[in-house]
């Protein structure tokens, strides 16, 4: 399949996230010392500054916070996909995640709509966690 979104920027901190996504697991960084869950990942825990950090598979349950419809392509590769939606979701475990709806935007989309994760294998190497109505 042709793949038309920008690739991850190669940040090594994010590699476990992408590895888990390829295995259809949604994960966030979690501090082994204080339990703080955070995303995007951080070199130390933003709550207690511990370096002892793990990745925790989360439930995949989320609620919709907001979404926008892009009519302008800031990357040339996205020109053919216009217009496209990007949604912002709050995971049940706390962290926020920018993502897309898998398939069409839910008709009753509004803040608070329950969502669940669904995985979109956009290439052999990249699977994007996306969201559908729960």
């Amino acid at each position, binding site marked *: 399949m042709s793949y038309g*979104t*920008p*690739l*991850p*920027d190669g*940040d090594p*901190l*994010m*590699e*476990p996230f992408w*590895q*888990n996504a390829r*295995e259809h*697991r949604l*994960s966030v960084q*979690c*501090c*082994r*010392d*204080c*339990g703080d869950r955070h*995303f*995007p*990942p951080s070199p130390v825990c*933003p*709550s*207690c500054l511990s370096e*002892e*950090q*793990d*990745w*925790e*598979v989360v439930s995949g349950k989320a609620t919709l*916070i*907001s*979404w*926008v*419809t*892009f*009519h*302008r392509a*800031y*990357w040339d590769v*996205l020109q053919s*996909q216009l*217009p*496209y939606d*990007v949604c*912002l979701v*709050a995971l049940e475990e706390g*962290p*926020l995640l*920018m*993502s*897309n709806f898998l398939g069409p935007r839910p008709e009753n989309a*509004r*803040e608070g709509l329950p969502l669940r994760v669904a995985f979109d294998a956009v290439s052999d190497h*990249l699977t*994007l966690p*996306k969201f559908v109505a729960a």
Partner: protein
Amino acid sequence: MSGSAARNIPEPGHDRNRLLRRHAARAILPDDAMTSMNHLRNKVAVVGVGNTPYGNFPHKSDYALGADAFKAALADSGLEKHEIDGLVTCRVPYYARMGEVLGLDPRWTLALPGHGRMSGMAIIEAMLAIESGAADYVALIYTNIGRSRRMNYGGDDSASVWDPWGFTSPGAAHAMMFRMHMQRYGTTTRQLAEVSVAFRQHAILNPDAVMKKPMTIDDHEEARPIAEPLRLLDYCLINDGAVCMILTSAERARDLRKPPVLITGAGGRDAFRRSAVANFDPDMWFTEAQDTSRQVYEMAGVGPDDVDALMCYDNFSPTVLFSLEGFGYCKRGESGAFVEGGRLGLGGALPTNTDGGHLSNSYMQGWALNIEAVRQLRGECGIRQVSDCEVVHYVATTPCTRSIIYTRA
């Protein structure tokens, strides 16, 4: 990090109550309500302001534009160049080259990046430097060649972790927040249009402004969508130009050419913990704006009812609504109704961004609004002058929220 394998985290080793307390503590701001800059009220003055024309200047460097603005501000102040002993540069590629071009050897120099939130920060820093004695006369120089160098503030200009989902650009972050405002409070895009329309009317009265074509609410509604619910006329301009301000102590200011404009109040609060999505805050920086407003109003000894003109950072039109709520001009959620009927216009109850703002005057990232505040207080604004203008409030509601209240000496 312990490798890529996913696994469930064990219960934390700490006792649960301590953990709960720690989480509770994160929900509130640090306990520094007792500290303030109140003792700096009216101690520092703006004594010179200058700007270049605004537009597209592919043959002018940052330094050439900066020099033009500096010369204009210096002439405005009546100071001699050798008296400048403090330098702040913002968005200037290299502060030392700016100093070399201007022939300055300051005692105190500070270089800041080209973010809109930096203008208020820079002015407050200069106030502190003057009051501490680190410098007597500080020139603050902002330059921007984003237009002629084709900046577009998205994609490769601002790579982020969210790129693979197609999310980019500060405008899209504001579109996210505005949709939340629409859903929570029933705010409409026609109400949002009032902001852009009011500022365009002001730009038409400003000889320096870039955008002078008349605009109606319907024009706003029919403009090309960029990141819905925002449209083209919700976005700031991208243009070249430079601004310079010169500050000194209120005492030294008395002997200079123009009537001094005093920094009467200042405040700020940053929101970095929730900044994973650049230029977005799930609470629209309401907590930070409230905290900043408490600081600035307390230091100045005035409140929103005393303000004659508001200079409100408007990178995107929704920021103005968030600012009006955060700084107590209206109640939370009521900014849409508040701006209806031209309230932000020159004839309205709260003239705002009387130069046309970033939406229609010039994208000088807060700097042009600060010199407009000074010019309004001096009574130099001609047909866009606010009558009996005594208190002007600068507000930038961003991840680094800053606010300054200026008054006539």
